[in-house]
């Protein structure tokens, strides 16, 4: 069962990075995240699985799709990189994986046994008790991110006095499709 979810995760992740169509990539990402949620469930973390589905699949992926839709000009806009670069990326990624696998294989972690998982109530206590400060800091971070994102993405208003469009909104460079 867990191997199935692992396979789903890896396969859909590969599709995410290889798919020519951005929308497909995002959908494959949703698949990966769902697989991860299933993995969480198998790791005795049902609350995590639920949050994963809700925030990731429900929030992040939706956001991504919006982003793609808003910024997309034409289908297949993913300008293909040349083969040299793909090879380079492949070599580096493979090398890293081999090295990591080697490190894992050399470590004694294989002998670890599963421990009893905390209940959701325990989790809530930990979150709002032991890790309260981190929790609050995180809420601040989210607030800052939201404000920042709004500031970045908002369309500049015309200058109230001169009526000129702000310079930043005019493309500095003509792009020929």
């Amino acid at each position: 069962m867990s191997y199935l979810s692992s396979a789903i995760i890896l396969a859909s992740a590969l599709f995410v990075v290889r798919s020519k169509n951005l929308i497909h990539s995002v959908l494959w990402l949703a698949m990966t995240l769902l697989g991860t949620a299933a993995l969480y469930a198998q790791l005795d973390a049902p609350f995590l699985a639920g949050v994963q589905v809700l925030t990731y699949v429900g929030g992040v992926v939706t956001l991504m799709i919006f982003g793609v839709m808003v910024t997309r000009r034409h289908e297949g806009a993913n300008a293909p990189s040349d083969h040299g670069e793909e090879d380079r990326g492949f070599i580096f990624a493979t090398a890293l994986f081999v090295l990591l696998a080697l490190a894992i294989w050399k470590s004694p972690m294989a002998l670890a046994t599963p421990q009893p998982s905390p209940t959701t109530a325990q989790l809530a206590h930990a979150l709002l008790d032991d890790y309260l400060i981190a929790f609050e800091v995180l809420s601040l971070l989210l607030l800052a991110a939201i404000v920042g994102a709004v500031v970045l993405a908002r369309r500049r208003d015309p200058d109230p006095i001169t009526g000129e469009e702000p310079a930043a909104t005019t493309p500095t460079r003509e792009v020929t499709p």
Partner: protein
Amino acid sequence: MSPVTLAVVATLAPAVAALVLLVVFPLRHRGAPAAWLTILGSVVSLAAALKLLVDRLGGAVDARATVPWILEKGHAMAELGVLVDGVSLPMLVIVCVVALCVQLFSVAYMHDEAPRAYGRYFTLHALFLFSMNVVVVSPNLLQLFAGWELVGLTSYLLIGFYFAKPSAAKAAVKAFWMTKLADMGFLFGLLILFVSTGSFEWTTQPSTLVATWVTAMLFVAVIGKSAQFPLHIWLPDAMEGPTPVSALLHAATMVAAGVFLVVRADPLFALAPATRDVMLWVGSITAVFAAFLALVQSDLKKVLAFSTSSQLGYMVAALGAGNAFAGFFHLGTHAFFKALLFLAAGSVIHAVHSNALSDMGGLRKKLPLTTAAFGIGALSLAGFPGFAGFFSKDLVLTSLEDKFHWVPWSLLMFSAFLTAFYMGRVLIKAFGGELSAKAEHAHEGGPAMTGPLVVLAVPALLSGFLGGWLATQVNASYHLHLGLTPVVATSMSLLGLGASYFVFRNGGTAPLAPTLERLDAFSLVDKTWSTGYQVGLLGVASLAGWFDRYVIDGLINFTGWSALEGGQRARTLQTGRVRDYALMVVAGIVVLTLIGVLR
């Protein structure tokens, strides 16, 4: 004023003039004000020198004042100051008189120069007089060396006065190189002296070995400065400078500085008989050799240049014979009559616009005063009885006779014959015979030119009678007695003049004349030097140049190239593409992981 103050004034007056002209450049660029300021400085110098002389005649004694120089941990390594004694005072007067005459002469002679060049010329003259006076009054060898180098510098600048003319620029560089090469000797001599005695005084008493080395090194400098064989080759080329410059620097004063140095350092030379023997021979050979060369020159100034070299050979020979006074006396008389000769030659050149003897002829009809002046100078140089050169030359020859140096004595006697012969030749070719084409419109150069001639003609005639007085000043004995030397010398002189008359009287048509004209041994020495220069110095220079170009520059270039190349390579890393940066990050991770795994 005290003698010290007067000597300082005499030394510094031209320096002030030169400094003012250097700093206040509009004065220099205007030309005429520079001339008058320089002459004013010279007049002040001469007045101070004459006052010193008068005081001296009134019984004043030697004066010396110094200030510490080059302080090292509170201890002065050397001294700077003035010394007024029987050697420096007559020399000071001679230098100032000749310099003033030459400067006055130059006012007219250089009149056609552009104002800037005119100003530059006189500024250099003021600088020269200062430098020469520094040499003359210096109380020790170090200050003398400083002045020595300064006159070398002004000599270089004045020879190269017409620096736009390639031959002048080349001559200046040649003179500079030759004298600098010799000046290395001075420097080494100073170093040896200081290391072994801790002093730059010429009154120190080092061991014979040290004295020999020091004097030998000093003599090398003398060979260069006083144009002795085999370093004499720069002097004829130095005639590229304006004629008054030749009169002052390359006849009367600067080239005589070498002789002056030996006279000054006589106590040291007295300790080194070996050096004196060498000097005797070098001087004698130079006297004959240069006289031969003077015989065959077709350029009036070059005749005089070689004759200067020859006469300096006399002085050096006298010094080598141990009679410093004889050398000094000849130096004094020579300064007057050779300056006179050069200025008269300048007057001639000014009149006919040419240096070549062949362009001259019959000038006695057009330039009577110049002819008279040149005649006096020539007869004095030839040692005609009664003229200044007669007395001093006899003294030189007598000093050799006294020491029984018969071979150098014969050489100098022969040289005396040659001197009379070539001066007779010049006299006949330039002033006798028919009027040449170029001399048609010749005329005297006005009072500014003839005045100095008249002034200098007096000592050229009469300074020989001052020998007795000069001898008392330097504590030497002086008495002319009718012996072998005066008789032979006089007959040589008359014989030379007569022979030249017979050979050249009909415009140089006698069978001997063309043969003599073709005899040009000078070029041999010059060629030897230039070959040595090319093979030796240029060889080393090209080797050094190669090393510099390919090894030093190569290293520099490699550094630059590697930085550039490295930059070019590194630039490709900075593609500005996010992916490439990400790749770099990944590469870093891979490397770190690798390290972690391998540990």
